[in-house]
């Protein structure tokens, strides 16, 4: 009997079809269009639109009160927000508790309680302990979360509780000198998240459909591993404390529980990576005793390399064991949270392909079942291993060749680089491939350091690293290296532009990376679709924007205008954003545009005001939406949330102006949402 898995085709299979010469590259977008689950993305977009509307309106209210208008008395402020809370609660009841609008009002009421606490602190310049209002906020709004039957509402509530506990541990206990209690609290919270997860799986999910969303479980595990990491790390490096053993046991228990009773790839790989971050620290402990001895570098390098290989093996085992079983996210009750794949026969017929060849290609694709988040975790582990490898090799070579010229290191680096690439192109074993990936990075960095020290020329080093990165991108087909080399290319271009003090350097990077990103995501190059490279290039301006916002805050609050006041740069980023959307919709009429023009225009207005990089984050979301890529949409959403937060700290506009911009754009989004929701008649 044929394994049912191989009868379905998803978007992730397209690159393999192109590489196998089954799908002509000029049919790539047609294939994407066929496989894109339009119903899923329509529902996603409608929800996203409501979330954006509510987020903007609430942010506008927060920014308004943060303006701290002198002409508004304290009691007036309390009356306005109190009235807002009451209005939201009444609207929640009138709109029906479980309707999308009702749930939005419920979340609005919860958030406004926090605004009320902020005003209390603002008017009376209290309290001393930052955790106090968050604790009360969580306590007072727990009844709303309990009444909501909505995981988004619970997520907001959990975020408030998490902040309360974190601030109590770090600003309360640690400031009072009670580090042990702070670590114990962090570990206890991790245990709380795990207990919550078990209760969700065993008690709530079997009875309540609305509790079954996979993304919420992922968040709980993120919370569990995050708090365990902090509790473990603080106590592990404090020689007197044994609390780290509890944190370690908790995460081991979590992995075991997920493996034995509640498997899903996302949660298992996240928990496994969390365990990796704890176990890795045992190796680093050797630095404490061993100093910077070459042998220590070597042992830690082997330790991390072994752990990475172990993680590769674990992931492969998880894929083999659990991918054939229906994942929780594909259960009928959760159809709305995952796009549906298509049958391979329908796909073949639509595109005029040989059905047998398609089926054969699906069977032969060994990378088929590895989700993108596993690649990310392996990439992080691989980078850490590579850095230690550089430390070891560099120290070893320095010791062996102490009187040698620097260029000898450069030549050795080139040799390691070239041999590793050559072997990488021929070897199929995933374990060896990951080690060779590490050696490629090590060789490249050694070559750069060696020749760089010899030449003492910044431009020459940049150029050399650029060439090495392009070689890796061109010759090695590996998602991780593709992503890293693309990130390196755009970073190096940016560094050179800054070094040469080229004016409008950020905009040049924005244009180059956006063009490369959009082209690579929509056009196969030869037989390769460089999705990872395209993603890296598309992310680069947003990452640059984040770096710029933080460097602005660090250098001076006086000189805040360079990236915030630069309206020319914003106009350029808007033009690039519009150009990207038009290019992704090429061949379509305005009425067929994704997203609809009525939704696109307010999005563009909003993108015009956030700091540089925010427009790129929006383009990531839109590209994910248009191409049906959840990973792009998720990355873009996380970056966009970040930029909205950073908008608060942007000093080029005062808070009152920003509050008006956000509130009005939020109302516009709400209007668009209402129109679309009524027109589509979509079930929430």
């Amino acid at each position: 009997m044929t394994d049912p898995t191989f009868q379905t085709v998803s978007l992730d299979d397209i690159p393999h079809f192109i590489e196998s010469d089954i799908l002509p590259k000029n049919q790539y977008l047609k294939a994407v269009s066929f496989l894109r689950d339009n119903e899923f993305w329509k529902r996603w977009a409608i929800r996203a639109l409501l979330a954006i509307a509510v987020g903007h309106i609430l942010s506008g209210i927060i920014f308004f009160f943060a303006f701290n208008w002198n002409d508004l008395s304290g009691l007036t402020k309390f009356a306005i927000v109190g009235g807002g809370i009451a209005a939201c609660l009444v609207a929640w009841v009138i709109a029906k508790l479980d309707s999308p609008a009702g749930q939005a009002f419920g979340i609005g009421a919860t958030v406004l309680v926090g605004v009320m606490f902020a005003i209390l602190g603002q008017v009376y310049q209290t309290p001393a302990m930052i955790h106090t209002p968050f604790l009360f906020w969580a306590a007072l709004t727990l009844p709303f979360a309990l009444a909501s039957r909505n995981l988004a509402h619970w997520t907001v509530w959990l975020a408030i509780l998490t902040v309360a506990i974190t601030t109590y541990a770090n600003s309360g206990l640690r400031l009072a000198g009670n580090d042990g209690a702070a670590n114990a609290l962090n570990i206890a919270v991790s245990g709380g998240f795990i207990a919550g997860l078990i209760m969700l799986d065993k008690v709530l999910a079997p009875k309540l459909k609305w509790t079954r969303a996979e993304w919420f479980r992922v968040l709980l595990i993120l919370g569990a591993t995050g708090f365990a990491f902090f509790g473990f790390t603080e106590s592990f490096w404090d020689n007197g404390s044994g609390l780290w053993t509890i944190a370690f046991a908790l995460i081991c228990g979590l992995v075991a529980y997920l493996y034995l009773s509640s498997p899903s790839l996302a949660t298992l790989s996240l928990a496994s990576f969390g365990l990796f971050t704890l176990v890795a620290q045992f190796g680093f402990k050797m630095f404490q005793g061993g100093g910077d001895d070459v042998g220590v570098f070597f042992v830690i390098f082997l330790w991390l390399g072994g752990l990475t290989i172990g993680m590769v093996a674990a992931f492969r085992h998880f894929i083999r064991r659990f991918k054939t079983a229906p994942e929780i996210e594909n259960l009928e009750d959760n159809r709305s949270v995952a796009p549906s794949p298509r049958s391979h026969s329908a796909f073949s017929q639509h595109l005029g392909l040989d059905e047998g060849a398609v089926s054969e290609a699906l069977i032969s694709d060994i990378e088929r079942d590895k989700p993108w988040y596993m690649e990310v975790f392996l990439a992080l582990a691989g980078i850490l291993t590579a850095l230690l490898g550089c430390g070891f090799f560099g120290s070893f070579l320095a010791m062996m060749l102490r009187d040698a010229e620097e260029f000898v290191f450069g030549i050795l680096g080139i040799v390691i680089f070239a041999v590793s690439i050559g072997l990488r192109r021929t070897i199929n074993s995933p374990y060896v491939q990951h080690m060779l990936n590490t050696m490629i990075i090590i060789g490249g960095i050694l070559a750069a350091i060696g020749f760089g020290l010899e030449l003492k020329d910044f431009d020459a080093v940049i150029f050399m690293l650029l060439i090495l990165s392009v070689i890796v991108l061109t010759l090695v087909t590996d998602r991780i290296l593709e992503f890293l080399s693309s990130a390196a290319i755009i970073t190096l271009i940016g560094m050179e532009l800054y070094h040469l003090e080229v004016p409008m350097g950020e905009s040049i990077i924005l244009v180059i990376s956006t063009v490369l990103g959009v082209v690579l995501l929509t056009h196969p190059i030869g037989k390769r679709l460089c999705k990872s490279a395209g993603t890296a290039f598309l992310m680069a301006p947003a990452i640059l924007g984040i770096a710029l916002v933080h460097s602005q805050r660090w250098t001076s609050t006086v000189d805040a205008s360079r990236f915030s006041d630069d309206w020319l740069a914003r106009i350029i980023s808007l033009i690039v954003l519009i150009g990207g959307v038009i290019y992704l919709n090429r061949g379509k009429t305005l009425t067929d545009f994704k997203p609809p023009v009525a939704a696109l225009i307010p999005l563009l207005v909003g993108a015009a005001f956030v700091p540089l990089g925010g427009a790129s984050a929006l383009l990531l979301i839109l590209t994910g939406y248009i191409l049906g890529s959840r990973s792009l949409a998720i990355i873009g959403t996380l970056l966009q949330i970040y930029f909205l937060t950073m908008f608060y700290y942007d000093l080029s506009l005062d808070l009152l102006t920003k509050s008006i911009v956000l509130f009005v754009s939020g109302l516009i989004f709400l209007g668009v949402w209402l129109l679309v929701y009524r027109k589509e008649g979509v079930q929430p």
Partner: protein
Amino acid sequence: MTALRYILIALGTLGIAALFGSQIKALEGITHDGETVLLDLRPVDPRALMMGDFMALRYAEETPQDLPKDLPTKGQFVLSLDENKVGTFKRLADSSNLAANEIKINYVRRKRGVTFGAPRYYFQNGTAETYEASDYGIFKVAPSGRAILVGLADEKFQEIKPPKS
């Protein structure tokens, strides 16, 4: 089940109304009726999420020279007030009566020194320059020792008023 949900919403609403109502009443009482105390401050600057622009403050009396090493986590200081209402650390509060020019103020211990509970002064966005000349924090202190920061004063002990918009 639906009735339970409405009951939960009603309970939450009552809790919110009760907490804020009682807190606003208590704090308004301290603002109007509390003893005025000026504390010498050492201004430190930024923006807090949701509460807006603020000036970070430290008070000289939060790190007095003669604090005992085994200071309790929470307690009260006794401050003596001069003719300008400027408070100076006198001793840890005990059962003895206060002199006419003495008041008690609550503290919470930190790694270095203590805090009286007002590490920031919030002001309207864009008006930071108005407060750069501040030398004292103006507190209103209740008989219980609870203190709230109500303003900043200059070197002449005059309250710095917010600018007119």
